[in-house]
């Protein structure tokens, strides 16, 4: 449970939203946010976190230090 979007950097381009395998990303008040309860860091789905890979602004989708790292289902 661990990625977050830095709101001040997000351009609201929406590119990340459909890429998330867990539908953890949604629009809130003009910017996009990640639901930490749903984010699995893409582990088990893809080699790299999809939101990070598609986001046009570096350092916008980052590990959320306030959340524990995802432990995986297995």
């Amino acid at each position, binding site marked *: 449970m661990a990625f977050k979007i830095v709101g001040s950097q997000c351009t609201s381009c929406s*590119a990340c939203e459909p890429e998330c395998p867990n539908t953890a990303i949604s629009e809130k008040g003009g910017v996009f946010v990640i639901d930490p309860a749903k984010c699995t860091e893409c582990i088990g789905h*893809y*080699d790299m976190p999809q939101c990070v890979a*598609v986001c*046009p602004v570096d350092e916008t989708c980052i590990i959320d230090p306030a959340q524990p790292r995802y432990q995986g289902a297995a």
Partner: protein
Amino acid sequence: MHGLTEVTDGTSGAVDIGEIMQAIAEHKGCGTEGGSGKASCGSGAGQGDLPTEIWEKVKNHPCYSEEAHHHYARMHVAVAPACNIQCNYCNRKYDCANESRPGVVSEKLSPEQAAKKVLAVASTIPQMTVLGIAGPGDPLANPAKTFKTFELISKTAPDIKLCLSTNGLTLPDHVDTIAAYNVDHVTITINMVDPEIGAQIYPWVFYNHKRYTGIEGARLLTERQLLGLEMLTARGILTKINSVMIPGVNDKHLVEVNKAVKSRGAFLHNIMPLISAPEHGTVFGLTGQRGPSAQELKALQDSCEGEMNMMRHCRQCRADAVGLLGEDRSAEFTTDKIMAMEVNYDIDTRRAYQAAVEQERVAKVAAKQEELESLAGESSDIKLLIAVATKGSGLINEHFGHAKEFQVYELSTSGAKFVGHRRVDLYCQGGFGEEDSLETIIKAINDCHAVFVAKIGGCPKSDLTAAGIEPVDQYAHEFIEKSAIAWFKAYLDKVNSGEITHQVRGDAAIRQGALISAA
């Protein structure tokens, strides 16, 4: 590399690609034969040597026919914010710079809002014939929104042509859907066919759940672009290739790009100048990568023109542009205003209006033809450029001080040919800075011998004359090409009689600053 036949073979219902290539090849390039003989694409006497089925598709399309762009308008709806590649000339805080000018932000719309906007604009501007989706990101990185918009519009306004512009990465996946919605014009931005050059333009692409960087990413992009182009050609969909000219990076290489796209059936090639300034915050802006000068751009366009149709009238419009090319009425159609508008979409009124436009076009072409005959006996090597202030309809109908741009024509004994346009700041804004802005206008049209206007004040008149640019207002409200030819004939007479000597003029600046601020 995928061959054309491979693609065609695998596709049911595809038209015969040989036939299309033949039709395009016969047509060759409306700018080509006989040196600078004919005017640039789609111009001339109208259909010219274009096969009828292609002419039908382009004749009212302001981007595909230079001649049409004086009469017909287009609009873009900004329904596609996401993108799947990163370009060094783009800063994603703003709209995509593929077509749109950097530094502008469009008002994003839902497909439903977009459909309402199209109806509102079509009812207000009956000469609006084309709806394009060009961003602000990549339309095909937002397929659901893009195709939903097309679906809504094809139901409510079936007479409007649909058009889209893409970076091509996911194009092969969507070609069938594009065909199903009767989109008959697709623009692909192709800046390279060599991955090593591509790596200098594209830091990464996102494809199939992975980010590919450098040469690997650029190779993937060029393969997908060319495959998509072949698939569109196989389906009889007209394609325009946009290329951004980046001096020192891909300027020479664009000749190769031109060959590669021509051999795959592209209809039109649009080489656009890189627009780059540090304040855009793009990689190229920050590294000081410059854009081309007006003459560098024209020389490259000229050298590709023998091969295929060149578009020279692209305005690098914003993703929510509305109106004739070169004008922008988007401020009249903000979401708030549209939602409050009573829309009455009347197809008959639109048809009647467009029929009147057609008559105007015919009259214009006839007038030009007649004037051209008077040049028949002349022989001279002189070629020169003139700038024209126009509000559209092919007329010299704009006041010098009100012009937001000047159209540039090349004159020679074979006639008048549209070769480009220069955007300028409004000179006549009143208040401060007038002298400066006159100076920048002179820089923008410094390669021109004359500037044709409907009206001009005494002060700018004498400054222009001092700079060697003749202000010409005697053809106010007359047809551009006819007047230009008449003026050119008189010019040649004066040169022949020794009254004046012909001087070659210098280069001009493609105004970059003006692109950021004004609409």
